[in-house]
């Protein structure tokens, strides 16, 4: 059961790292090429640790690459939010704010996990994610309170990602059982601090909270958007083409 928990956290990080990697050499300025690559690297590191741990826990000999490259999209457990296409920079920053604010609250609490590995990962990740959250916050402020065009785009970006936020706080049988044991964090407990933080940023940026729309969910059960299949085809093609190879 812990393997399923580690897998979901690892898949979130892996898929978002893949999306952020698409920005490299196309960011609005050189500093952002550096920053986005840096965030992608942090997430990739988290993903590698989590997937490795998930593989150990399931005990079938699958390592990080077996899990990243040989599962089909129906077996991925990431939230839909992270697989959304990058859109423009405002969509990406809206997604970053929503996700990093969630991940920050998650890892902050997961440091107290009774599972030493999860606690250790969380201890390292929380510092990285603090920076990710800050980076997104700064940009939401700049874009929300910048020019008319940037404000319009920021509003649209938030509206695009907003329906995907709710899934982050969904519990399931895994999180219920593991949080009762003190291993996992009950995602529902993150909603309040997340809301406080995100609404604070929006208020400072002079942006309204997007209108409530029907939440989009399904990723944790392997019911993804049509976007994920393309992301995986690109990511996995070379690895799958040489099944026995070492790289």
């Amino acid at each position: 059961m812990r393997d399923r928990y580690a897998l979901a956290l690892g898949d979130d990080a892996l898929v978002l790292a893949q999306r952020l990697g698409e920005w490299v050499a196309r960011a609005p300025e050189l500093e952002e090429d550096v920053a986005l690559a840096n965030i992608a690297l942090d997430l990739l590191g988290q993903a590698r640790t989590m997937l490795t741990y998930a593989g150990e826990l399931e005990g079938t000999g699958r390592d990080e690459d077996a899990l990243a490259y040989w599962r089909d999209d129906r077996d991925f457990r990431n939230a839909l939010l992270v697989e959304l296409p990058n859109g423009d920079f405002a969509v990406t920053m809206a997604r970053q704010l929503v996700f990093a604010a969630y991940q920050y609250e998650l890892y902050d609490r997961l440091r107290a996990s009774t599972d030493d590995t999860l606690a250790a990962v969380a201890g390292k990740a929380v510092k990285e994610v603090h920076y990710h959250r800050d980076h997104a916050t700064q940009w939401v402020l700049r874009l929300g309170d910048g020019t008319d065009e940037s404000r319009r785009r920021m509003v649209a970006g938030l509206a695009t990602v907003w329906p995907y936020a709710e899934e982050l706080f969904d519990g399931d049988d895994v999180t219920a059982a593991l949080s009762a044991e003190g291993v996992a964090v009950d995602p529902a407990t993150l909603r309040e601090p997340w809301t406080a933080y995100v609404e604070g940023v929006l208020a400072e940026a002079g942006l309204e909270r997007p209108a409530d729309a029907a939440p989009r969910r399904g990723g944790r059960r392997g019911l993804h958007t049509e976007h994920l299949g393309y992301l995986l085809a690109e990511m996995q093609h070379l690895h799958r083409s040489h099944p026995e190879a070492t790289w």
Partner: protein
Amino acid sequence: MAATDEREAAFYAIVDSDGRIEPRDDMPEAYRKTLIRQIAQHAHSEIIGMQPEGNWISRAPSLRRKAILLAKVQDEAGHGLYLYAAAETLGVSRDQLLELLHTKRQKYSSIFNYPTLTWADVGAIGWLVDGAAITNQVPLTRCSYGPYARAMVRICKEESFHQRQGFESLLTLTRGSAAQKAMAQDALDRWWYPSLAMFGPPDTGEQAAPGGHTEQSMRWGIKRFSNDELRQRFVDMTVPQSEVLGLTIPDPGLRWNEERGHYDFTAPDYDELFRVIKGDGPCNEQRLRHRVDAQNDGAWVREAAGAYAAKQQARRREAAA
């Protein structure tokens, strides 16, 4: 004018004693202009150079290799930042330099106008292209202009790390399956001559660069060795490494010359080099278009950041008043 002569004498005194010229020191205008062009071209090469390798980030065949590649491309962006900053100490802005790049009035290294067709190309770029870059750049850590020399120290350290990673990646391929080994050999076949061409035209002969530039740059301490000296150094360093890899350098004329104490090798096709520099390489248009698109697509973001900064400043001023 006497004052000018005096200032020039002071400049040469520093250069000749292997000292460092700093931004506030006097320097001849031609020195400043040459340095700006050289540093800018180097900076442009770093940021255009992100593209051919960036092409494989999404498809890297293991998560470890993906992380290494992402970190490497990030370093290149960082090198671009140092180098634009070094150029800015000479009185030009990054925006001005980018504008010159985007309008083809400044160049970047032609090596990046070749496509990365397979994963092995990423390793080959690390091994050969970074290897050639280091050969070119190590002497620049002692160049006469302080900010440039210091940037080069940091860059060379990181690039030599990249070079070892590229070599190690290729080594994994050559010790892997037949398909992987073939992929590595194919990459070497395609990248060898373009890498040799990175050192520029030959020192002598019909295709040599028109006279004077090299001598002047040497006199100024911003070039320490001739193109052919550096090319020979690169070949001498690389051939033994290719043997460790078990790959064959695509040059039937390659052999050790006991007498010279160097490898003899076939020179690259300089005509091709000039064609690619002129703009006719396989990816010239694609690389520049990608760069200009990124710049244009990001314009509204940079404007917003500027507008926000101005508002914040005004608010602080109001609060202080």
